[in-house]
């Protein structure tokens, strides 16, 4: 029950590095010329940086696919915009999300574990922070896929 309450409370979000737009751009070796293009057109993730402080986006984890023992695929949706802490993610339009797929190697989201075991783990052990309850995540390829 405690875990469920925690999960309801768990609102978050991709943590982004705290930086200004210019620093963010230069951190991936972006040039001054490409900065003006990225800034003008709000390209890629430039909107995520501002006053040198981190902002947060909502992440919804949809599917977790175990490929083999050391490899797991996460299929998720990331909000295009940042949202406030108490915001109900269900109110966000479909078009305000972009789909993302990430490949990870993690001890919890691992083929060797059962889905029941993963779901009973405390949220801080998850490899990423996501807003939706873990019961709504689809697990494929794990020991006991229920």
């Amino acid at each position, binding site marked *: 029950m405690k875990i469920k309450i925690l999960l309801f409370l768990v609102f978050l979000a991709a943590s982004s590095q705290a930086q200004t737009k210019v620093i963010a751009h230069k951190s991936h070796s972006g040039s001054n010329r490409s900065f003006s293009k990225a800034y003008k057109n709000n390209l890629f993730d430039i909107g995520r940086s501002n006053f*040198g402080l*981190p902002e947060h986006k909502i992440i919804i984890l949809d599917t977790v696919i175990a490929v083999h023992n050391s490899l797991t695929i996460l299929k998720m949706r990331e909000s295009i915009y940042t949202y406030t802490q108490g915001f109900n993610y269900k109110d966000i339009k479909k078009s305000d999300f972009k789909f993302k797929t990430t490949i990870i190697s993690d001890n919890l989201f691992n083929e060797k574990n059962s889905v029941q075991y993963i779901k009973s783990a405390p949220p801080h052990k998850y490899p990423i922070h996501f807003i939706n309850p873990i019961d709504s995540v689809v697990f494929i390829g794990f020991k006991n896929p229920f």
Partner: protein
Amino acid sequence: MKKIKSFIYQIVTLFAFLAILFIPFSFQYSTIQSAITKFLFEDLIVCTAKKAGNILIVNPEISSDSATLYLLFFILFLIAVIAVSILSFFDFWKTHKNFIFKAIQLIITYYLACVMLKYGFNKIFKSQFYLPEPNTLFTPLGMLDKDILFWSTMGTSYSYNVFMGLMEVIPALMLLYHRTRILGLFILSGVLLNVVFINFGFDISVKLYSSFLLFLCLLLLSPFLKTIWQFFILHKTTMLNNFAEKKWIASKSLRLILKTIVIFFIFMESLYPYLLRTQYNDDNEFRNELHGAYEVLKTQPENTQNTSVNQNIKRIFIHRQNYLIFQYQDDTMEDFYLEINPVKKQFVLKGYKGETIVFEYKYSQNSKILELKSIETGISIHSKSLDWKKLPLLKPLFHWTVDEI
């Protein structure tokens, strides 16, 4: 003279209050602030820029050190001048202005405390000055701009980040208690002066906002400057007037409830994201498995007809915020936004001109070899992962004596 001073003080205080209300700062709870500011001021800002002549607005969004933010400050200042000029004709204003300005002073104090706690905890948790990315670490020093060099240098010292963070958190906490408030402001003005000069000296684009925070600090200190001068310079016996909430709210219980709520929200704002993540050092935060630096061992043309492609790639970097960077033999860099498709085993690179390049990739955990093959250009790149965390800059060096080196 006293009247002019009072008039100017009213204008700057009202301006500070309006700026607090409308600057779209990065608060967790206030995307609404950004929406309101956009609704009220965006057209006015664009119109002012046009009327003023050659003010270039590349992006109408109001963000740190943007032309729109400068214009917003200018407009808010004009509004403050007009409002105070008009209000000074009303009796209501004359009789209640002291009460109103006491309230504004308190709002500014709590705002300053909130912002400084956010910045302070971000430093303590290593979220602001993060560990330099591999591509920055492999860029020759002389090719880095001052701002990213400063940011990266700060990012290499955990202890200095904690110290800098505490230097912001401690005076911010002092602002929350009336007995330590003036001392807190005094310390904070020194801290902020340093921040402002770092931002100007290293061309970091938080110049306007950090100057605004210093201005708020000095504004709150200004009623006490004369007393402080008399004490420290003239060595006179003086006493500071208490800068307390009770001058604004008489009821002790109401004051306590309000203060508890405000402090709770301030701490939620600055600490809640970290409590949720239960990760208190960004250096240890999860990164993509392929994140890192790769030394190119071999580049093969493989029947390419495309001679415009630069094949002199020395290194490849995968950035934690999904970018792929090529470093060429002459140390120039080219970055692309990266989307990894692990099912198709593809890297989809997106350039700033809208171009897309698709690479098929193969990564071996054991040999740490990353192979990229572009069908469109025919280029095949074989690279090996570099242990970038073992670079001298990231080693936790510390010597009490030079003899130990």
